[in-house]
């Protein structure tokens, strides 16, 4: 019997895995649960399984989570707000 854990992990499949389409359909809901520190893995077990196994979907998850937890700043609005505050 051989022992190559990375190969074993790569070949292992989870019947609960929902696939890319379903994972992407609910990604916004899943990401918000994760971002809020709530349990996403229990209600979305098949999505969790998929995001672990699918590199591209996992990358999409990371991207959306980064945008939600640290939204890109609106530079123009921020500077405008600062100016308006300064005039008061």
């Amino acid at each position, binding site marked *: 019997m*051989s022992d190559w854990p990375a190969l074993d992990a790569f070949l292992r499949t989870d019947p609960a895995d929902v696939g890319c389409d*379903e994972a992407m359909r609910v990604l916004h809901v899943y990401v918000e649960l994760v971002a809020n520190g709530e349990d996403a893995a229990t209600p979305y077990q098949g999505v969790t399984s998929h995001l672990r196994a699918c590199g591209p979907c996992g990358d*999409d998850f990371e991207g959306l989570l980064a945008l939600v937890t640290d939204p890109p700043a*609106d530079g123009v609005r921020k500077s405008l707000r600062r100016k308006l505050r300064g005039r008061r």
Partner: protein
Amino acid sequence: MGGATPERSLDAESAEWVDRLKVAAPHREAGVRDLHGLLLRAARREVRRRGAVTAVTGRELDDLAMQAADDATCAVLAKVDQFRGESRFTTWAYRFVVLEVSHKLGRHFWRQPRAALSEVDWNRLPDVLGTPPDQLVEVEELTRAVRRAVEDLTDHQRTVFEAAVLRGVPLEALALQLDTNRNALYKTMFDARRKIRTHLVANGYLADEVREEVSDRE
């Protein structure tokens, strides 16, 4: 798990976005402009985040962000009536731009010179998966066993496995080349992985943990 996602009443900010973007909304143009600005900032952030692993740089990367923001804006406007508040509006809208960036970077893959040159290389397998340095001989033997298992796959499964694993083609790029989609390719890979594992277990290379767990209980 499939099924419906829970609907919630819209939070104030989400409700304001939806009101401003409805077809009959007064001053809708301003709402669309703000939406595009939001998605452009998100697209720029996302292409920068992914930039480290792509060959797209500089102005081309900014053009890609602009195209992603344009297309995501159109998608959001087309589906705003379907938004049910399962998440905040901005989270829902960001999802469109993340998927657009992912898709467009897949297109760019084929414009890189190395894409046309890459060939099936079985030596990549240990590098792709990570090789335990003290088990090189074992890994070579297992690689040969995987190769024999891959020969038993269907032509389509073998094509997808070799491209995705041994030629390093991203699934999004491969989907474009094979005129299919990421989900279909993932299912093909899913079946291929399961078949290869079954072959390796049957030939004594990997442990069938499910059976072992059952016999442990007996």
